[in-house]
């Protein structure tokens, strides 16, 4: 049974990865890459590796997403000021 669940989550991971690459919106791409890690951590739990699952969930889908979001915010801010300078 759990083999089928793992297969479904694996296919979902591939879809999320493809979406993260081809999405025009960077914010959606960051969220999608967080979803990949979350699905991977569920698979790790199903495969009886709770230690790895905790690391993947905390670092992969939590902290990495936050760091990406902070970086995105910073890039947007830089772009905004540059455009303002050009206008002025």
């Amino acid at each position, binding site marked *: 049974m759990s083999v089928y669940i793992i297969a479904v989550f694996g296919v979902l991971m591939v879809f999320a990865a493809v979406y993260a690459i081809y999405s025009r919106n960077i914010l959606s791409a960051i969220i999608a890459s967080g979803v990949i890690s979350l699905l991977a951590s569920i698979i790790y739990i199903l495969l009886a590796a*709770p*230690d790895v*699952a*905790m*690391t993947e969930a*905390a*670092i992969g889908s*939590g*902290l990495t997403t*936050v*760091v990406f979001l*902070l*970086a995105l*915010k*910073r890039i947007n*801010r830089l772009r905004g000021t540059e455009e303002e300078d050009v206008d002025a």
Partner: protein
Amino acid sequence: MLRRIFAAFAVVLLAMALLPFITEIHPFQELSPVARHYAEKGPDELGGANLVTSVIVTYRGLDTLGEVTVLFIATAGVGFLLRRDERDEEESAAAAGTDESGSAGNSPRPASELLMSGSMLLFPLLMLFGVYIFLHGHLTPGGGFQGGVVIASAMLLVMLSRVSLHLNHTVLGLVESLSGFSYVVIGVVGLVLAGGFLDNRILPLGELGNLLSAGAIPVIYSLVGLKVGTELTNILETMKSEEEL
């Protein structure tokens, strides 16, 4: 067009090269000799109820030291690349000064009431949970890295809810370096007093399953937890304070 054909060709070649890894390799039917030694003798030798922790902290302790070093280099890199020039700081301070006389529009918007109340409720629980994870690393799943990340996410919650809050980099750096230093010192003590580098048998092994058991593993994992927690907090704080400039 030609590039696409080349790309497709490369993908097909790569798939052909990697195909044997799926078809030819069969899953292990039994444990390898090293794995069998860990699984059978591990609990008796090291006294850790969680075998994964015994392997990570003691049998493969040197690799863990390498991982901690990698994280330290990453933190140092973030701090180096996003460092604030003194000149920039003076300029921004001057800009803030002129702004204050004119309008206070430059000050960051305070976080919402919901976020502030929620973070005040969750912060102690998250801190407690993080400490629990790394103190019980030898008994339950998890350990220094996971606990450290949970602590860092608790600090992130506080940073998000108190926008003007600035953490003291000196204290963070001090905690981080002291715990890293003690980690290596414990490893060397293991080399002198027990079987090898990072051997946990410098302290009594105790009874399997107790909190005070497994020798030095809880001490080592607490140090790793503190180090990882402060390092990741440092990264988040650097990125956030840089963003406010």
